[in-house]
């Protein structure tokens, strides 16, 4: 065991400066496990989704219509994120997807910065927001956002959520954690926004610090779903749990991808179903709005399981 440790140091010194860092990580995984260190969990994650205008649009990586997502990992953390651009900007000639796309891409870049703190995903959102203002090309629009970070050191997930996107954690067939929807009023979620100059007063703009933050420990085999409101407004919770509990403890990414695909497909099918009482319709009725059927919207599904 001792020589194994020493040889691992030699190997790591040789490999440290080369491109084989992935190999190194796998090697240290094996070695550290055999040396009895604490197990470090990681995400096996997949993505699927449909833009609202699926039949007529082209696929663009990282976006589904006005929704956007990212997933990345560092040696210490795994990060997932989704953002839903507010569609109302279209009538002002602004592309709503630009804002959410920029937000997610900048979050991804920030994760790889030196000062990334896995325990404060809110910082990701606020710095990403500040970066928006430092762009030469002016970016206007607004979007909701949800960022989820797994800190490998202590097997804890830290989340930050603004608006009506969200996440759900399923363990042993039950939902153990989920995010709360933040809305000002019906169909108007909390949103990060950069209005055009002169329109500050007319536009809803929420601070990144108004995000809901949650943190909780996770166990191996937990299923985590991060999605935009296209999923949560169309799939009832019971159906969601039914689907998600199938993949508990699954480490095969192909199986996971199949589940994610079916989730997205179900959401899309239900959204165009005119008679189905979707959660959106139920919510609308609670607010004295007579609505039936699903809500056609962009659908983004980021599905992950925790493994060691």
């Amino acid at each position: 065991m001792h020589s194994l440790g020493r040889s691992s140091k030699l190997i790591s010194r040789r490999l440290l400066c080369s491109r084989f860092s992935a190999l190194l990580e796998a090697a240290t995984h094996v070695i550290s496990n055999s040396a009895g260190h604490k197990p470090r969990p990681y995400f096996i994650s997949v993505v699927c989704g449909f833009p609202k205008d699926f039949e007529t649009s082209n696929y663009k990586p990282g976006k589904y219509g006005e929704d956007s997502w990212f997933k990345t990992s560092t040696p210490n953390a795994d990060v997932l994120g989704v953002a839903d651009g507010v569609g109302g900007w279209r009538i002002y000639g602004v592309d709503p997807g630009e804002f959410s796309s920029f937000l997610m891409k900048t979050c991804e870049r920030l994760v790889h910065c030196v000062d990334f703190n896995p325990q404060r995903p809110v910082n990701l959102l606020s710095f990403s927001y500040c970066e928006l203002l430092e762009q030469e090309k002016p970016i206007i629009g607004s979007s909701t956002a949800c960022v989820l970070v797994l800190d490998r050191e202590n097997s804890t997930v830290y989340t930050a959520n603004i608006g009506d996107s969200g996440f759900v954690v399923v363990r042993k067939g039950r939902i153990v954690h989920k995010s709360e929807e933040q809305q000002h009023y019906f169909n108007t979620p909390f949103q990060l926004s950069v209005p055009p100059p002169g329109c500050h007063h007319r536009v809803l703009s929420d601070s990144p610090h108004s995000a809901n933050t949650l943190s909780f420990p996770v166990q191996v085999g937990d299923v985590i779903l991060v999605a935009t409101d296209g999923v949560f407004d169309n799939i009832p919770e019971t159906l969601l749990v039914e689907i998600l509990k199938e993949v508990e403890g699954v480490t095969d990414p192909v199986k996971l991808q199949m589940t994610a695909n079916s989730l997205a497909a179900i959401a899309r099918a239900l959204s165009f179903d005119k008679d189905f009482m979707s959660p959106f319709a139920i919510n609308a009725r609670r607010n004295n709005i007579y609505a039936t059927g699903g809500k056609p919207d962009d659908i983004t599904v980021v599905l992950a399981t925790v493994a060691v």
Partner: protein
Amino acid sequence: MSQSSTTSSEDGSKRANSESVAVDSVIDFKGKHFGLESTSEDSDDYLVSGSEGTMIDVERFCHADYRIEQYAHSVLDFSSQYGIDLSISYTAPNITGRPSKYPEYGDFPQTFAMRTYGAWWERAPSRLKEIQPQNVSEIPAEDFIAIFETYNPGAVIRVWAYTIAKTWICLWEDKEFYTKPLYIPSRARRFTPPLKRIQLPTKTIRLEFNHQRLHYYTEIDAVLLSGKKFNTRNMQHLLDYYERQRKGSILCKLQNMKFRPICRDNYQNRLQHFLMHDLDKFISVLSDVQIQSIQHQQQQQVQSPSTGEIKISKIGLKNMPFEIMLKIFSYLDLKSLFRVGAVSRFLYDVSTHPLLYSELNLKPYWHLASTELLSTLAKRATILKKLDMSWCGCTVQTISPTEFKKFIQQRGDSLTHLRLNSTKFLNASCIDTLGIVCDNLKELSLRNCSPSPPLLNFSCLANLKNLERLDLFQTVIESDLLLTMLENNPKLKHLNLGKHNKEYEFTLYLITLYALPAFCSVAVNMDDVAQHIAKYNKQLISLDMWKAHFLSAQGLLVLSNCHNLEEIDFGWCLREASLGDSLREFLTQCTKLKKLFLAAVRGLTDRDLEYIANLCPNLEQLDLMGVLGISKERYIDILQKCAKLQLLDLCFCDNIMDYDVALWSRTFKVDIKSCQVPNDFR
């Protein structure tokens, strides 16, 4: 075939000219073998022999055939960047790691961009005159380094490496930079200059840029180093060897020669005797020999076909009057001046005359500047007027702050121009001394002088009362001190407060966006400065507040008191919704305006552009980058009414097409910048 080998190490630092970036990596260069006879093959031992220039076979220090490629790991230092400190857009850290946008071409925020471009700043009213311009010339100077340029390539002019022997060596220099016109197609470029082969492993790369001939900002995505890995176990031998080398070639030869003079008894007496009696005879015999040989030569000349009387003149350089010699030497750069002083006593006397040292520019010699140099210069420069020590002392602590302080104390009282941009040897007592001793200062430039954590206390600068130019770009000083300095210097003509914001202000700025009243008082920082300027510095000609956040329309309004303003840069300021009448008021009062930069002032409207067109007849440079919602007619209006316009920056503006820009550029003879970045940047 350039077979430079690079050894892997952790960091990278880049330095750039107006910009520099330092990248750490240990670079080991395989040298040529000139008649090298190595008698030992043992890797722990080496013997060097050879006729000229001893070279060492460094190859044996490398791991055989293990080539690696590495990208820059971290940035040690830079002299300017376009983005603000905590941002990841257009900042220096973007040059580390793999290239993110290459081979795409365009203006991407994921790259490293610098503050200025082209020759436009030389044409502005605030242009600087180089101190001792004859110093800035080409430096004589021969695996690979690849620089990924994604926008407007062609700015790199020198590549330096910092060796283990603690010296900087220039690996490549663009010798034709000043003579040949630049043509590089507008495409992303992976630039691999041919590097000079050196024998030393190095740990740091520095890039120097000169953007004079560039059309627009240049942006760099990554720096790649490739080569062989250096075996650090043998480093000590190499270091010792080069330590010995540094002592000088004669000493080295002596050491190698194992020379021991054989002295007879009482040699001391004999020496004295010789010096007292025989030396004069010796010299006269020598000069006789010399005269004879000259006569011999002249006789030969006389014998050759002549066109008339040949004047045999014995007048040479050493017969010139002293003043003529001074005039001739005043054209020499500093290095040549020192060299010429080593020729003879007479030339030494001329070359050390204080009149030749009234202006000193040590910026081109940043890699050689040391404490010894400073003390030597202190002895000669008794009437020092202008001093430029920019870039000296960076990452290599060869100038001690105490020595600099002594230098200033001795020679600082006659200083009128002082430039200490990007220096790393300044500490609190240096600044104190500056403030106390140099009260005749007319120009003070302290660009990029705030290391983090900030350790400089600038309060003694409040003593300076004669300032005409103050440059604090990227340097943060306490606002009280700044206000006091503004009050004390009514003759101030040029002021640069670009990027004048502390780190924490970045997050506070975020909070002020949500108009939390509790924090508003911090937000009016620059407005205070503007008020002071309007009250005390009415002679101001140029003001640069680029990215000095927290300037509001109110500040703009009060600045209209400075009627002499010719140049103003409000880029990335004035973030509020609309400027109201402040711009109109300002333009009405400041009619001499030649340069107006309003990049990313998003609140500009058609009306504001109307004012610009109607109220600025003398306008030469106008920057409207990133301003949305302006109609095409306004641009045409400006182009028509501002007859002297030379530069118009319309990047990221809407409502204009490429053919519009081309047409306007031809019709009005104005350099118009525009670029369209694809909407979905990755």
